[in-house]
């Protein structure tokens, strides 16, 4: 530990002195924060179907592959995607449903796999917490079915299963769904990319270069 310095007290003292004419008493802070005008669009106006179409369209703009399926067809759809990838070794988060772990492939179930072991896998299959149609964003809260952060980072190929009921239109709708705030979260909008060389968008720098999304429609749709 570095020696305790007076900087904490000095900085806070300076900050408080600087804001003494505008800072609110602690008791009023929460109410003032809640009363900030938020006139932007909270809830989108699209139909459920249009919202899902938008989600798919935005994902495809990012060069993500999207396939649609139903709950019944899901295991077969996942198996077909895995077969189509030409890859053999996949990481599965600890809580991934057994039915999603298609036969004929090598599965590494994550229970604290080392980075080196994950690095050797060619792909990863996970669930998601939410999908945001407006920006084509997939939200991971890293639960048991979504996995630790590292497993969706090192393998070059990520297949993510999103249920239609998880898709919201706007980003504020996602925040409304959060309930308890997540300690860890990753928002993924398309595969890893850069535009650092002459603003030319290049897919795939350090994160997975291939993002596949399986959108599971409700059986009624």
């Amino acid at each position: 530990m570095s020696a305790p310095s007076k900087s904490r007290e000095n900085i806070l003292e300076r900050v408080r002195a600087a804001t003494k004419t505008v800072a609110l008493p602690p008791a009023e802070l929460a109410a003032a924060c809640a009363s900030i005008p938020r006139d932007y669009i909270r809830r989108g106006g699209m139909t459920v179907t249009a919202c899902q179409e938008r989600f798919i369209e935005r994902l495809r703009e990012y060069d993500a592959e999207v396939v649609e399926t139903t709950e019944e067809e899901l295991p077969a759809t996942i198996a077909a995607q895995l077969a189509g990838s030409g890859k053999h070794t996949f990481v599965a988060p600890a809580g991934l449903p057994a039915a999603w772990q298609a036969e004929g492939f090598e599965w590494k179930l994550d229970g604290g796999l080392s980075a080196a072991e994950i690095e050797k896998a060619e792909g990863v299959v996970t669930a998601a917490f939410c999908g945001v149609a407006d920006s084509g964003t997939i939200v991971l809260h890293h639960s048991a079915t979504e996995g630790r952060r590292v497993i969706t980072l090192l393998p070059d190929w990520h297949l993510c299963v999103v249920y239609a009921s998880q898709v919201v239109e706007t980003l504020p709708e996602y925040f409304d769904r959060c309930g308890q705030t997540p300690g860890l979260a990753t928002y993924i909008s398309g595969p890893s990319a850069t535009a650092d060389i002459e603003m030319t968008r290049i897919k795939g720098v350090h994160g997975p270069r291939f993002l596949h999304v399986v959108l599971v429609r409700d059986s009624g749709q």
Partner: protein
Amino acid sequence: MSQGVYHPVLDPAKARPFPEAVLPVLRNPQLRKNVAHAIDVIQAKRGKLVVEKTDWQALRTAGAAIRTHALENLGAYLTQFEERCTAAGGVVHWAADAAEARQIILNLLREENASEVIKIKTMTSAEIQLNPFLEAAGVRTYETDLAEIILQLGEDEPSHIVVPALHVNRAQVREIFARRMGLKDLSDDPRELTNAARNYLRRKFLDIPTAISGANFLVAETGSVVVVESEGNGRMCLTLPRTMITLAGIEKVLPRFQDLEVMLQVLARSATGERMNPYTSIWTGVTPGDGPQKFHVVLLDNGRSSILAKKTERQTLKCIRCAACMNACPVYRQTGGHAYGSVYPGPIGAILTPQLMQMHHAQTLPFASSLCGACYEVCPVKINIPEVLLELRSQVVNQERREAGRLFDPMYLGLRIANLIFSRAWIFHTAQFLGRIGLGVFTRKDGWIHSLPSVGGKWTQTRDLRGLPKQTFHGWWAARAAKPSGEAK
């Protein structure tokens, strides 16, 4: 940059005044072409996405209000952040200035016996000149953002806060990578260059156990840190190492987790013209089994609290570092970033840099603007940059005119004389009278002055000056009043 080309100095204490520092850039057509191309691309993308967002102005209004509220109550929110982050297993450090921040980070690295460290792009670390300090102390730093690798290997400096190597083109990147990575057969295809960077860094991510990041936002409510990026190098640094050190300015705090719903909607659209950047990472202290098990946050003041104290200038700290202002700026478009002599270029740099220097350096920057207001119009948190520019200009002028050596400075002498002339009507009329006689000598038959001697020649070198009219407005008015109404035309 190849040898023989000037090396930019991004230390405001050592940089040359802006009007001198721009000269090498203005004489470098390749660099200007690179800058203009990059900016045109971002601007076009941003424009489309802003139009499509029908609630853009409401988002700006909310974004501005959230940032203002956070700054006005910064003391409360900083202590709340500290409390929540600490409760989640993080360690919070406070650094009054750049030197203290550097020392805290070095001490933390020494505790880890770290001889190497991987870094996520952080302009704040460039502000405190962390890399040269760590290198001198024997710690090798590896930048992992593609643009930062280009700069680090090319021994160049950032010229933009979001796309720091936008002044370098693909042929120059190829040359740097071929030379520094020993890849003789590398082409200048951006795909191949990006792949070279991927391979260069892959083992470093897996092997180096200590990382340094900046922060886009700190969330007071939860004690979380937010990092926004594109490539995944950030996620690598945030996930693989044992120890993570985050350096963040004290102004980066947001009150609530939900405030991200505004900030994340405006940030990527403003910064890179994307609906959302590829990766946003949020973490809170230490999570057992996931990511670094030691986490430190260094909260940096370095002049920020004194900016906070001033009513007009306080809004400077609302900045979320999207760079929309520099992309919109007609001055930046011509000069690029290096001329600003700071890691923070463009309009926001023109107001932030001199203030971070407590107005002791970079005094020419508030004048590096046409005051056209484009920066204010695009700012997602509504920083009225022209207003702050004017405030800082007046401070610089007040500072300068008190300097002893300025007594006979032609500009201040001229201004003092003007002040005297305008203070009394009779002096003004006398000056007008004398002026008409004096200028009459130089006025040609067409009523224009084509050339003036001495200092006046600086004006007529590039433009003509209209001669003074025969009658002044005052004279005309007096004559009109003396005649019956309706006759004076």
